[in-house]
């Protein structure tokens, strides 16, 4: 017990006693002498104390676990602890560590003329042993150039360079049924006006860019598909199908605006949520607004004798965001 008491007293003395650093003569000092600053020291001690309190507060909040706004309290306590610690360090740096500023003049530029000439001479003379300088330079250029080319090669993986054929492929073939998310075939009489549906090709990979299509029903009188798209083939019973992938940046078109009172309200349109490209389903997917550069690809439809919706063929143009030469070929299965 007495030993413990001795340790305690020794520790207290060590902690609390003022240290007297051995002061050397002023002439031997590197850093200029400055008087002690007890006020700043007190500030530092107080800030250290506050930092410790805040850190303990963090532990307490963590342990209590049932405080309202616990996350906020954790953040506040930890943040305060760090802020107090930083403030203490700032005070030490600004007020307690002796600092001095020394200015040194830059040398005059013409002081180095001799040195520069010497460096040029050293470089020239070091190359004296090379007899086929031009060939060596050529070899070095070849090595550096091919290394640069090697580093650029992986960029080819960013996309096909010459063969674009797989961009034109879609899973839609004549007779393929349109099914919903759960694989149930869509029926023509189940497609209602003012509703929009997402359909997939039956039995094909739904993840490919050509797979998902939007299906809507419009009044046949409102359709203006043009003479090259007979309504019976492209909009049987007023039902239209378009690729769900925006032709601008390839986002999924998730918005269908449908006027409740068409006299005063904007016309029906598909809207891409990414950049607000707006496509008109009544006119073959033409762009009404936004950055898309070409119409939404349309899928021709047929209604089979059982009343189910099937693709009549493939899209009228390639699916997905555009690339150079996008208009050169037709999509294929």
């Amino acid at each position, binding site marked *: 017990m007495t030993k413990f008491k001795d340790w305690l007293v020794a520790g207290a003395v060590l902690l609390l006693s003022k240290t007297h650093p051995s002061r050397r003569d002023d002439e031997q000092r590197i850093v200029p002498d400055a008087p002690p600053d007890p006020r700043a020291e007190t500030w530092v001690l107080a800030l250290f104390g506050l930092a410790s309190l805040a850190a303990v507060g963090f532990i307490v909040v963590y342990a209590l676990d049932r405080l309202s706004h616990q996350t906020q309290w954790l953040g506040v306590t930890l943040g305060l602890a760090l802020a107090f610690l930083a403030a203490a360090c*700032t005070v030490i740096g*600004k007020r307690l560590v002796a600092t001095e*500023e020394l200015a040194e003049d830059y040398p005059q530029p013409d002081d180095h003329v001799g040195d520069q000439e010497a460096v040029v001479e050293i470089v020239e003379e070091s190359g004296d042993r090379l007899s086929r300088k031009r060939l060596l330079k050529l070899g070095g250029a070849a090595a550096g150039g091919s290394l640069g080319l090697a580093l650029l090669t992986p960029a080819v993986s960013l996309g096909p360079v010459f063969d674009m054929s797989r961009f034109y492929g879609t899973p839609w073939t004549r007779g393929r049924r349109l099914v919903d998310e759960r694989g149930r075939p869509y029926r023509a009489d189940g497609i209602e006006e*003012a*509703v929009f549906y997402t359909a997939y090709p039956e039995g094909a990979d739904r993840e490919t860019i050509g797979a998902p299509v939007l299906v809507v029903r419009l009044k046949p009188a409102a359709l203006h598909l043009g003479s090259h798209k007979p309504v019976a083939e492209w909009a049987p019973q007023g039902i239209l199908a378009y690729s769900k992938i925006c032709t601008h940046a390839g986002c999924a078109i998730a918005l269908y605006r*449908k006027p409740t*009172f068409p006299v005063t*309200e*904007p016309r029906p349109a598909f809207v891409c949520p990414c950049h607000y490209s707006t496509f008109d389903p009544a006119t073959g997917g033409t762009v*009404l607004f936004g950055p898309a550069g070409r119409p939404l690809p349309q899928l021709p439809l047929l209604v089979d004798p059982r009343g189910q919706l099937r693709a009549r063929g493939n899209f009228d143009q390639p699916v997905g965001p555009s690339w150079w030469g996008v208009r050169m070929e037709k999509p294929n299965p």
Partner: protein
Amino acid sequence: MRRLLVIAVALALPPAALADPPPSGIVHPSAPPGTPLVELGYQLYAGNCSSCHGSKGEGVPKLGAVEGAGDVPGAGPSLRSVGALSADFYLRTGYMPLDDPGHQPHRSRVLFSNHEIEAMVAYVASLGNGPPVPKPHPERGNVAEGLHLFTSHCAGCHQVVARGGYVTGGVAPPLSNSTDVQIAEAVRVGPYLMPTFSPHAISDRQLDSIIAYVAYAKHPDDRGGWSIGRLGPVPEGLVTWWIAIVALVASCLVLAGRLKS
């Protein structure tokens, strides 16, 4: 002198005439107590709705073809088969009456008493064979299923946290003030540019889940701390740029300040 006076009066008149707008506002008929609900509804309808929806709810299909009371050039759809569901939605959200038939209806102060709304709903319901006011049961719904359905059907316009957004040509309103019944009604009505969702597309049971999710989205658990608008990186970036960076620059200036010699 007299002529000058006449000119002065004539010059002064037009601004005075412009300063007094024609009398307008909500008509509250003074029906005696005991008037049948549909009769009161008809009187309210005639005074407040007929200029755009026609004297018998048949609609005014073209702008300027005035058929209703007053001389407001109106245009509005037929209410013949919209039923109590639609009337209840538009009146209780303050979407109707609309100040200009070309504007998008927006949530505003309801200008009718509850009794008057019930009367008008009863009158519109009597016009044709329309759906009744729905009775959703969000307590039977499943929030997780609701999130899934909301993401696939609604989030494109209303955002996944139901805070609203834009379509070209219209505004998708935030759902923070929508009641359960109003959400159920809006899904079936498809007000303004919103698509209609029939019970085939979204069943009543799925609708319960969607309503349960919207109720959750009004007050979600912000486990990460304060929500700062739940708008994602934008407000977080504002906090970073306007508070954190200012504080950092200020402390750099303090730390690196040159000694005063």
